[in-house]
């Protein structure tokens, strides 16, 4: 009888074929043109039915060689490029780079300028979170949320426009402070925004926080274990949603964050819903920080370090004094040369720890500029979270990581 079995070729063939699993699994190519991959992310999903068994993010569709560009531009020329990494929170990117270079040069901006930097940074965080909330909710199917969020973001962009003339890619920060005066109506606009926003935020939460469908779509989905979060070096809300207390503003305070009274929200379960709660709470804390800045800020005082060789001279004196004109000429034509050395400056970006590693060889052009963008690192957690999730969860997961492809691909 054993002989007959060995003759039964059809059985053996089909058994061999079963091993390949070829037909049970379906490969779905999600992106790079997909409405909910937040740009040109491409995710190759292997699915059994609607369940994800394999998830493979493919990056680089928006790669522009930003780091290489940093090695070929003068220090101050690189600032606009940082705008274009995470374009929904451009001022924060500027800030991180400027702080790094300032540390390299050993200078520090005047107090008033520092406060304004903080205000702009927090406003950028708010703008970024609003974009995240709108698109995240949209991915999960709440259509109206994005429109409401963009309505409030418009107010922030108006403030940016009033401050520097640009709305999206602001190129706002400068070495040693701000070379232009602060418009008179700006503090009032910021105050108005701080008064309006909390009410609006209550509105968002009334639409989402207790909505059963929202809860069922976010709770228990995309759980990141704390140890996994650390081992994947996640930062920002992805890390704090898993309950780990790490916030650059608290851990290694920069600017005047050590003067501020604010709290860092931590999640308890590490799922999508926790990260949602954490970000919503962060927005409240940001408003509080902005208000504290406005209260503590000196009403008068210098905005820029006029005397430093690393700082562009103020417009007035360039027009009036020959030294300043020469300095201006050299600053613009040749740039400034920080002392030899290297520096790593991290700030708490809206998406996590944004780090700039700048190496100077004493020439006006950096030897190396390295960007540690938070969403690039955070994106590592997508395959981890997508294992066993449903297809519909993937868009929620991409949303909860809060990626901007400009920043991921650089």
């Amino acid at each position, binding site marked *: 009888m054993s002989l007959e079995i060995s003759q039964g070729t059809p059985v053996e063939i089909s058994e061999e074929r079963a091993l390949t699993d070829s037909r049970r699994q*379906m*490969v*779905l*190519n999600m992106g790079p043109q*997909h*409405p*909910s991959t937040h740009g040109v992310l491409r995710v190759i999903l292997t699915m059994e039915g*609607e369940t994800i068994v394999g998830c493979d993010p493919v990056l680089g569709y928006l790669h522009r060689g930003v780091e290489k560009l940093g090695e070929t531009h003068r220090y101050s020329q690189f600032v606009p490029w940082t705008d274009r990494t995470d374009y929904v929170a451009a001022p924060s990117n500027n800030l991180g780079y400027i702080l790094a270079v300032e540390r390299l040069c050993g200078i520090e901006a005047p107090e008033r300028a520092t406060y304004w930097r903080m205000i702009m940074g927090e406003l950028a965080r708010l703008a970024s979170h609003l974009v995240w909330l709108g698109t995240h*909710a*949209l*991915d*999960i*199917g*709440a*259509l*109206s949320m994005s*429109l*409401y969020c963009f*309505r409030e973001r418009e107010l922030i962009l108006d403030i940016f426009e009033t401050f520097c003339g640009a709305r999206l890619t602001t190129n706002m920060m400068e070495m040693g402070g701000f070379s232009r005066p602060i418009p008179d109506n700006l503090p009032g606009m910021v105050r108005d925004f701080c008064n309006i926003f909390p009410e609006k935020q209550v509105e968002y939460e009334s*639409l*989402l926080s207790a*909505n059963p*469908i*929202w809860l*069922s*779509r976010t709770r228990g989905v995309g759980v990141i274990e704390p140890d996994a979060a650390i081992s994947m070096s996640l930062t920002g809300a992805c890390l704090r949603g898993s309950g780990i207390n790490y916030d650059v503003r608290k851990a290694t305070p920069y600017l005047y964050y050590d003067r501020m009274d604010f709290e860092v929200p931590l999640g308890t379960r590490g799922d999508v819903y926790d990260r949602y709660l954490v970000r919503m709470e962060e927005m409240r804390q940001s408003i509080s920080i902005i208000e504290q800045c406005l209260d503590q800020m000196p009403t008068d005082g210098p905005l820029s370090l006029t005397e430093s060789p690393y700082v562009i001279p103020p417009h007035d004196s360039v027009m009036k004094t020959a030294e300043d004109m020469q300095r201006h000429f050299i600053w613009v034509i040749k740039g400034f040369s920080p002392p030899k050395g290297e520096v790593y400056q991290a700030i708490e970006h809206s998406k996590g720890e944004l780090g700039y590693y700048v190496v100077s060889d004493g020439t006006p052009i950096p030897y190396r500029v390295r960007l540690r963008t938070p969403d690039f690192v955070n994106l590592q957690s997508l395959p981890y979270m997508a294992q066993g999730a*449903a*297809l*519909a*969860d*993937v*868009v929620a997961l991409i949303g909860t990581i809060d990626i901007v492809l400009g920043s991921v691909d650089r």
Partner: protein
Amino acid sequence: MDANLLSSYIFAVVVLNVLLGLMAYMTYLERKLMAAMQDRVGPNRTGPVGLLQPIADGIKLLVKEDIIPKHADRRIFLLAPLLSFVLAPVAAAVIPFGDSITVFGHEVNLYVADINVAALYFLAIGSMGVYGIILGGYASANRYSLLGGLRSAAQVISYEIILGLSLVGVFILSGSLSLVEIVNQQSETLHLGPLQLPNWFILSQPLAFVIFLIAAVAETNRAPFDLPEAETELIGGFHTEYSGFRFSFFFLAEYISMIVISLFGATIFLGGTDGPIRDGVWWLALKAFIFLFFYIWLRTTVPRFRYDQLMGLAWKVLLPLVLINILLTGFIRLWGLGML
């Protein structure tokens, strides 16, 4: 060919055309309402307050290039939108739009057909409507479309059951499957002590009504049950590969289904043409509009379900509820007839 049949044919043509016109402005209404809910203006450039927008859309869709993907199953790809589009208005044939009226000396019934299995006929046509979606999804030779088709098949079968069972309570109470008969029963007045209520089945079957409402949303693939076409997941699902007027067929079919199922719900639960003063088709229109408003409202407000949650809702929540409802209704009916 007798005059009765002829008047039926004429009325059918009228209903069909009215439905198509309504459907066009249904899209306008939806866009305007959504805009209002979302702090926007909505269409406002084409014609006064954008009133010509649907026509402009229609023209645009008709003149767009008709693309058939290279690997598509051509015949089915062409057949699927037609199937959807043809079946959607057919269900309206059994909706009674009122009693008969006299036109040019002929008595014309304000319904195309009064068959004694009208409600089941409606369900049957509804269950056929899913073919357009499944076949469209299959024929596109696109993974997203295939997934959309699969989702649609499972979803429609599940919610078809819920939809049908939610009506059983009404059938038990009315003792008939004919919509004309059901409307006639609802036009009686119910005396509850000093109160005089219309005998609408929403009052005697509130649970069934709620379940019907949910199942109807799912049956027409509308938010939050729009999984077969979820644009953020499946990029339109079954109609990803469709463009031009083939897409518009799917589009039309969806809106016509919405209108028809609204009319059906209004007929079954809200008394149809029965109203507090001067019964007539306007009451039916008003009630259907309430349904449609609810559809749009839902779409702007709630997020989308996940696939497994959707099926779980159908089988674990709605099915037991609707079975309990049938059981209770049956007992109450027997008790009312004095058989218990």
